[in-house]
């Protein structure tokens, strides 16, 4: 199942591969969601790796822990939320696709549309709405992480949840728009 996700991801990469200029606003939105995910991964994966390695070396050398060590959990949180949207663009999220192939292209399109209307939209709205409430209260309280220096402002981390889920919702929305265009005979099956 996971590797079929890999296959789909590769197929997705071919479609939006280098050398082909993005066409239309759907392509542009998807390209940006992917860029955000890639940028987050390129910055945060090395950051997490370095944070853990310095943690191991400072501990074995009996040095005091640094701010950077303590931020690993925050790096990971940002990483996890900022990549879910780009993975949805390339359709990397795992599906149980035993029956899916039998639905036909139109059936699959309908399943995606209904799933988005009944599942993705309510979830995204709830997370953005109540996530924004949390961001606002963290901002107004100027809440800070419970670590010395207080430097990592907590609201940035709180902001990761609604932003990440908004990117996910947007990516799924783009995909569903393509399915609708397909059902109306205006585009090939995505």
């Amino acid at each position: 199942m996971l590797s079929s996700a890999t296959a789909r991801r590769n197929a997705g990469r071919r479609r939006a591969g280098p050398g082909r200029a993005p066409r239309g606003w759907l392509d542009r939105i998807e390209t940006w969601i992917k860029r955000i995910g890639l940028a987050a991964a390129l910055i945060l994966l090395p950051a997490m790796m370095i944070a853990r390695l310095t943690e191991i070396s400072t501990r074995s050398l009996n040095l005091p822990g640094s701010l950077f060590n303590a931020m690993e959990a925050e790096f990971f949180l940002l990483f996890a939320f900022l990549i879910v949207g780009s993975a949805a663009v390339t359709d990397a999220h795992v599906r149980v696709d035993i029956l899916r192939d039998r639905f036909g292209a139109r059936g699959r399109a309908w399943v995606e549309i209904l799933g988005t209307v009944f599942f993705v939209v309510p979830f995204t709205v709830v997370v953005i709405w109540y996530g924004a409430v949390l961001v606002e209260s963290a901002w107004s309280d100027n809440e800070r992480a419970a670590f010395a220096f207080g430097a990592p402002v907590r609201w940035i981390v709180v902001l990761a949840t609604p932003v990440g889920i908004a990117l996910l919702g947007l990516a799924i929305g783009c995909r569903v728009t393509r399915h609708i265009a397909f059902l109306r005979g205006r585009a090939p099956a995505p």
Partner: protein
Amino acid sequence: MSEELIYQIADAIPFVMLGCLAVLLFSGLPVSVVLFGLGTFFCLVGILLGEMPVPALRTIPLKLSDAVRGSLFYPAVAMLLFMGVALEKSGIAHDMLRSVHLITRRLRAGMIVAVLLIGVVLAPAAGIVGASVVTISLIALPAMLRAGYSAPVATGAVAAAGTVGIILPPAVMLFFLAYQFQVPFGSMFMATVVPGGLLILLYAGWYMITAPRGAGTVDQPGPGTLAGWALLLIRGLVLPVALIALVLGSIIMGWATPSQSGAVGAAGSLVLVVISGRLSWRLIRELVETTANLSAMVFLIIMAAAVFSYPFRYFDGDSAIADALAALSIGPWETLLLITGIVFVLGFFIDWIEITIITLPLFFPVLAGLDFADHAGSDKAPMLWIAAMMALVLQTSFLTPPFGFALFFLKGSAPPGVTLGDIYRGIVPIVAIQLAVIALVMVMPGLITWLPEQLYGVPR
């Protein structure tokens, strides 16, 4: 609506949620979408029934971030995925097969032994079953067929090699099992070493006895010079084995905690890529992109499962499951076999990620209540024993025809001409070996608990 009716509906919600989950998973929607969609939907149902306060919705974004922050080992999962992807994409896995085969080529079934060893070293990549089966199939299957192995023998060996890694340390699945069964990561890592080693010995033994003489011994020209040999062995064998030894050794020696060891593996794999001379901006981008996509897939399911379990737990789903199993009034062995059977069947359809994150927590309270202290040797040992057994059961389930999904990946990545029938015929002896080893560890829990006890003492 009468209050009585509302109570009845609220009581039924956990079962309705599970029923909807079972049906909708097969809709082909992403698993994470089904989970968070049902979670949100049933929160709204609870609010409409007046059984849940509206501010409960505020908990959903908190559940998401808490799920990601839930464990220190999560960042290590991303690191280990990076390590596996790096070994695969940089061609190091391919070098490994070549160099190991040059050593084992004089053995009967030498090529199969080489493939099995690759499966062990690729264990962290094997965290994702499909990925490791496809990787090994792509690098080894055409060569095995050319070398004269029949399609059933070659595919059976690849399926075994591609799945055995998921139960060997530092495979990602073991982190999740340890977390769900509340056993120390170090003990979990060591628990599967003896049964996993036994499996590999039995696979190798079977093929050494049954593989046709002469197959796999076709000339594979070795490097002409001593220096060439040394270089190939260092690049293809010494360094990758040293990397795995470093990851495991750092845990055993206490330099790094299991959750820190992932970073050691990731950094080490990057050093290997540099040494192999294949480092390029394009490769780095590909590694980061693939790691991000795999991590996103895993962690969105974790987040979505937290959203699903919120109304499920709110309406007492946990105790409902335990009560339902208790109502069957069967003994601990029957309960264990029943749950193992359910996990085995689920493994046909869904990957270990969903099983360990969604299903096992439902059964955990029941399993924790089973009295196996005498059988396993101490009070805490039964959880370790059951967790390691679940790992074996899941691996077997991925291999068992007609549904075992490792077999479909194998078919998808095999050269044309290899039929699903070949794969089914080839897997029969492997499944027989798996079942024999599972039966053995059920009867002799010491096979699982001995090594962790030697290293970490009797669990208390």
